[in-house]
């Protein structure tokens, strides 16, 4: 590993540790989303302010407003209106160009943040004594001979279902005690582990462990990649989606986050005098 890669890994590691620490201080998902949205709203505005040409953006927006006003004032003069529409189009393009670079600075860290937070808030652990499915994709004929090794706290409640057409085996399992457990899938002489979270708290959940597909892994898995030469391609668990209750209705945290962070962003923009 190069020094740069090591530094990057350390930075990612410390970021995850800090986030884990921060999240562990809060156990209410709604409170987490609200605080996170406020923080991200502020961060987005500040970052945008620092990375954008505020003067140019101000001019671009003023010009857009002027052209819009022209459309209203001279609506009985078709050539002026048409000319203003053209200028509005050009002005919008100029504005988007000015906003693109700072948006890149904002979007990349926020995307990574969302991916990480989703591991905590996107799904709930399997409730104790509730059946769940563990699905393994196994290449070739090894699927027929795949077996499962379980800790004492996890039991199998039905024979596995072999889905030959999809190279899948599905086990129905049940966790009898809250905790984090490792189950082992053995196939083709290789063994792969998968973490199972049973309980009701706010653990970091990985719904799937897989091999290959780097970007897919980054966005969907929170576990190390499976060995490349293993016949086991992926192991997944059908964790229930987590809904955050707002006035009696449940919604995925991400919708709430988008709404609240936008609102926060608009408020902070005004307070800090940053043009967006």
């Amino acid at each position, binding site marked *: 590993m190069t020094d740069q890669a090591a530094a990057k890994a350390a930075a990612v590691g410390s970021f995850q540790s800090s986030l884990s620490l921060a999240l562990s201080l809060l156990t209410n998902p709604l409170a987490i989303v609200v605080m996170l949205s406020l923080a991200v709203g502020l961060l987005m505005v500040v970052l945008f302010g620092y990375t954008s040409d505020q003067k140019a953006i101000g001019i671009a927006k003023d010009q857009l407003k002027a052209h819009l006003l022209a459309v209203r004032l001279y609506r009985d003069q078709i050539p002026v209106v048409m000319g203003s529409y053209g200028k509005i189009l050009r002005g919008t393009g100029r504005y988007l160009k000015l906003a693109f670079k700072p948006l890149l600075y904002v979007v990349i860290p926020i995307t990574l943040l969302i991916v990480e937070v989703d591991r905590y808030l996107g799904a709930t652990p399997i409730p104790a004594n509730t*059946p769940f*499915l563990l699905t393994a994709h196994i290449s070739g004929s090894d699927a027929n001979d795949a077996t499962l090794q379980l800790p004492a706290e996890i039991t199998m409640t*039905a*024979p*596995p*279902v*072999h*889905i*030959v*057409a*999809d190279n899948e085996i*599905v*086990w*129905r399992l049940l966790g009898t005690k809250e905790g984090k457990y490792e189950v082992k899938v053995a196939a083709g002489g290789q063994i792969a582990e998968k973490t199972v979270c049973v309980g009701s708290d706010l653990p970091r959940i990985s719904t799937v462990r897989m091999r290959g597909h780097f970007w897919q892994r980054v966005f969907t898995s929170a576990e190390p990649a499976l060995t490349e030469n293993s016949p086991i391609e992926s192991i997944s668990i*059908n964790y229930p989606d987590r809904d955050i209750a707002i006035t*009696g209705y449940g919604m995925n945290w991400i919708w709430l986050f988008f709404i609240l962070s936008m609102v926060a962003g608009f408020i902070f923009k005004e307070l800090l005098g940053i043009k967006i």
Partner: protein
Amino acid sequence: MLGLCAAGLILFVSCERARGGTFASRKMIILGVDGLDPDLLAKFMADGKMPNFAKLEAKGSFRRLTTSIPPQSPVAWSNVITGMNAGGHGIFDFIHRDPKTFQLYFSTSRVEGPKHTLTLGNWVVPLGSGTAEQLRYGKAFWEILDEHGVPNYVYRMPANFPPITAKGESLSGMGTPDLRGTYGTFTFYTDDPTAAVGAVEGGEVVQVEVKNNRVATNLIGPDNTFRKNAAPATEPFTVDVDPLEPVARVDVEDHQFVLKEGEWSGWIPVEFELMPVIGNVKGICRFYLKQAHPRFQLYVSPINIDPKNPALPISTPTSYSRDLAKEIGEFHTQGIAEDTKALTDGVLDDKEFLEQSHTVLAEHRRAFDVEFPKFHEGLFFFYFSSLDLNAHMMWRLTDPQSPAYDAALAAQNGGALEEFYEQIDQVLGEVLTKIDNNTTLLVLSDHGFAPYRHSFNLNTWLLNNGYITRKAGANGDSSEPFADVDWSRTRTYGLGLNGLYLNIRGREREGIVEPGAQADALLQEIREKLLAVRDPKDGSQVITRIDFASEVYQGPYAHSGPDALVGYNRGYRAGWKTILGAFPPEVLEDNTNAWSGDHCMDYTKVPGVLLSNRKIEAQTPALTDIAPTILAEFGIAKTTDMKGHSLFQAR
């Protein structure tokens, strides 16, 4: 002067306190146990199986409760709700007819689409919203309690769909449709080539193909009225069957679950798209893998209205069904939750039906365990359906004279009904621990039970006796209501479980019987003849009572129902086909159906049950006494149209 003012003030305050004390401290608990039979109850009490009922009887009273005419649940519970008979509340049967069109409809509610629509190609765009309308008339006792500020809770009261506006929490019961708008339509998927595919009574059989151990098929949802042809909306799902083991994975929308052969799933939410973006309806259903190999057999329950996202109003406030579902999990919302049709169609066997029935009762008990501890004032009404539906289906296992009796099955499940009775006793035990001196407890049933061994086909009898005339070449087996009837030569017809109607001029579309003397004479003639009908096998009287509407009904709707009510002897009931206006070839048939116990008979032969922790003064209490009793308990005078009296007042 000051002294006078002080005295007045003291009097005012004490009066207010006294009034407040009456309302605030009185409590009333009613357990409505559909079909709780006095004879069975007495027997189980004598056997020591119902210790809490025995305790209640020892402390208070146990009476036979005169049921409604006819003794059918929607009628009986409407009597309870309004304190009136069918002439007042307008519910005469499960099924009513429009005399002008002879269209049949459910008696208690009507769900209609929007009045105005716009057709665009194959799409029908609604211009307004549809309506769900309750067809029962008269004020419900909890409406009156609301008006007087008495808190109330009403769980699954029959004949209350959509639930009437109420201040308290209430959940609709019997009469609530499934998502398809029926009283419950199951679906049975099989690859058996010999299976009779298509609609069966209460369900639908769908032929599927198991290809590479996978079944790809559709859930059948409500008719899509957004489409021109109103074909049912569907939702695809797949089942992957293990090649060797009797186990399968079901994949529906974003839900996956594994079922072993003989296992039930929990409630699975499903969503049917009626129109992209704007028109989706949500329901819930359960899956049962009856067989994986060698034949694939999968039962899917009727799709119930999702209590968390109800497509139709099922509770007050509307959020209540969602709140309850959060506390106890998803539950049956369909009015008649026990799938009796799946058992009679042979899709479920006795064991499977009983498993499903136990799930229903377990849901009721979970709801009870959540709601009863919250009860501190006013009225608490809680309804149980299990004894009724299980008596209907399991009676044959306790009745060797039943044509449907099977000794082997009786040995396996003959005690099933008794187990349900014992569970109700356990619920009563929970209630008894909370009774104080200010609490009045009533345990009541709408009717009792009797064996249903033989079917009497009233319309066939009327046909054979010249009261109905059919057109030449009429198909005897047609199941269409009144198919090929020559109304210009038909004087009377049977409809519903007990209804006998005259073809009255001016009321029916092609009425020929003059109201008044001619109608009265015709009814007398038919009464005499029907009472004389004997079972050729043993000479038993088949019909023991005919009540004329003019004699037994009072109120504004007394003349909108049947003209006479046929009261069958114990052991007899109207046949399934005749109640919908068909003409089976035989007048009397053995009932070999699993539905082997019933109560739609002579009302004097199937009384209900009434128990209280207080002394019941009324010697022959009736269902219509319940509403006046409730009101009297809270110091409220009964309304003028109520027929009954308080049970606790000497008459």
